[in-house]
């Protein structure tokens, strides 16, 4: 068994430990950046929804600033963010390299995207539902939790899935700041040293990861749609 594997993918077996470490690094980046991004994206997406013109707490300055900042960060390519945010990373995390150094740029890279996803999910809630809730005397906070979030749960699950998958793509670039992870592993060995089996193995793991995320997202989305 060992021999067959070794003949098929000699390099992967050789770098077995590093491969596992890369998977763990990717998972750590995904969870940390995803977790923080999830909270921030929801917060900003909800804020944009309620402060827009005609929203339940209309507030032009807040809306305009948040809208502009979101657009700004969405238009910066991630590879540039990675290096441009190094000083900020150092200030927040204490270092600009390794996994810790990758979290801040990953958050900045994914939150604007997720914010728009959340905003568009919430925009699909019928205005009539919000009006009905207002007529029943619900507070704004109740309208957000009991109408907006609840009624767009399916859409939000889809938005979260899409963002999680795109974040997985971003983590592949984190090698630039020495954060490791699967992307970095594949580039360093698979590309730079022409170890094809490593590239393939990485791709297979990523396909499995994406499929799993999609499956979980679809299941949740389906369960919350009637």
């Amino acid at each position: 068994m060992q021999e067959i594997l070794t003949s098929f993918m000699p390099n992967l077996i050789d770098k077995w430990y590093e491969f596992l470490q890369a998977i763990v690094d990717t998972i750590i980046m995904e969870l940390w950046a995803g977790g923080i991004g999830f909270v921030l994206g929801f917060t900003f997406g909800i804020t944009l929804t309620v402060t827009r013109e005609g929203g339940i707490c209309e507030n032009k300055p807040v809306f305009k600033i948040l809208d502009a900042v979101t657009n700004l960060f969405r238009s910066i390519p991630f590879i540039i963010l990675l290096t441009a945010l190094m000083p900020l990373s150092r200030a927040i995390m204490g270092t600009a390299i390794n996994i810790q150094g990758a979290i801040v740029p990953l958050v900045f890279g994914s939150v604007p995207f997720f914010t728009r996803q959340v905003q568009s999910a919430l925009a699909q809630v019928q205005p009539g539902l919000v009006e009905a809730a207002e007529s029943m005397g619900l507070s704004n906070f109740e309208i957000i939790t009991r109408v907006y979030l609840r009624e767009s749960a399916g859409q939000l699950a889809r938005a979260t899935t899409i963002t999680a998958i795109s974040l997985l793509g971003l983590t592949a670039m984190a090698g630039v700041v020495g954060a490791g992870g699967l992307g970095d592993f594949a580039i360093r060995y698979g590309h730079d040293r022409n170890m094809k089996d490593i590239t393939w193995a990485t791709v297979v793991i990523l396909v499995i990861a994406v499929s799993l995320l999609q499956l979980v997202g679809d299941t949740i989305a389906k369960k919350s749609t009637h």
Partner: protein
Amino acid sequence: MIELRNIVKTFKDDKEKEVEALKNVSITIGDSEIYGIIGFSGAGKSTLVRCINLLEKPTSGEVKIDGVDLLKLSHKELRSERKKIGMIFQHFNLMPSRTVFGNVSFPLKKSGLGKKEIQKKVRELLNLVELSDKENAYPSELSGGQKQRVAIARALANDPKILLSDEATSALDPQTTESILKLLKHLNEKLGITIVLITHEMDVIKRICSRIAVMENGKVVEEGDVFDIFANPKHSLTKDFIKTTSNLYKLDEILKDDINGISPADGEVLTRLTYIQKEVSEPLISTVTKKFDVDLNILLADVEIVSGSPVGGTVVKFSGESIKIDEAIQYLRDRHVGVEVIKDARNPY
């Protein structure tokens, strides 16, 4: 009692131009009334009804409910005041992610009722709207009429004194409309709830309202007891609306087409007789015929019951001696019959 005083509402349109949706509207709605507001779309009736629970905040004016000026309340006080005002909508606005039970119990969450009490309350409400068997269904599984019943149950959950109905039957077929109107009428009688309903269908007004306001371009052009308005419409818009449910005012068109036998021959007078009083018991036409020795030829008749009294009338051709016709017409007028001479084909004296 709902008092709207000098309500003005201006919006800014896309080009930042001010648009006056409501121009100094004042209406008073008494307890346990079914008050109808009719008008074409864009007349401002939707905005007006939303001023009652302040979903739309008037630019100026007073909104008083049982003497409390809602515009002077804090957010929190307004929210608790809103719980006393139920509202139903044209497109039902049920929460798609919740079952019928979930929707009806939706406004009860912070009511202080326990789980069991909520369950009891919801079952009572579903019983009232005759949907007890649909408790666990989702809105997507219901018909339009059933959805509106759920919406009504939900609107009644906090035992409101007032129910606002925003085109609640406009998306429903005629049979379903009929059943929803019956339900509203029943709730009005049973619970004494005040209903303010807006519609563009005169038929809806005719069936259940006790008083109505006719709106056009942000103004109330005519207001009053539904019987008086039907019997004696003054504004041309009101007449247009009544035309949609009564044949009597279609006569002008029929006359224009000059269908055989309608236009009066020489010596005859074509008139429209209408009920303008609630009690009509005398056999007027046969009395007039005998008493004045004139012939009355009934060409068209359209009578219906509006808030318990007949409304409508007949289109009648008088023939006979000229002076007797005058006397007969005067006799009818004295007995509070509206007589409108449409075409007089007698030779002038």
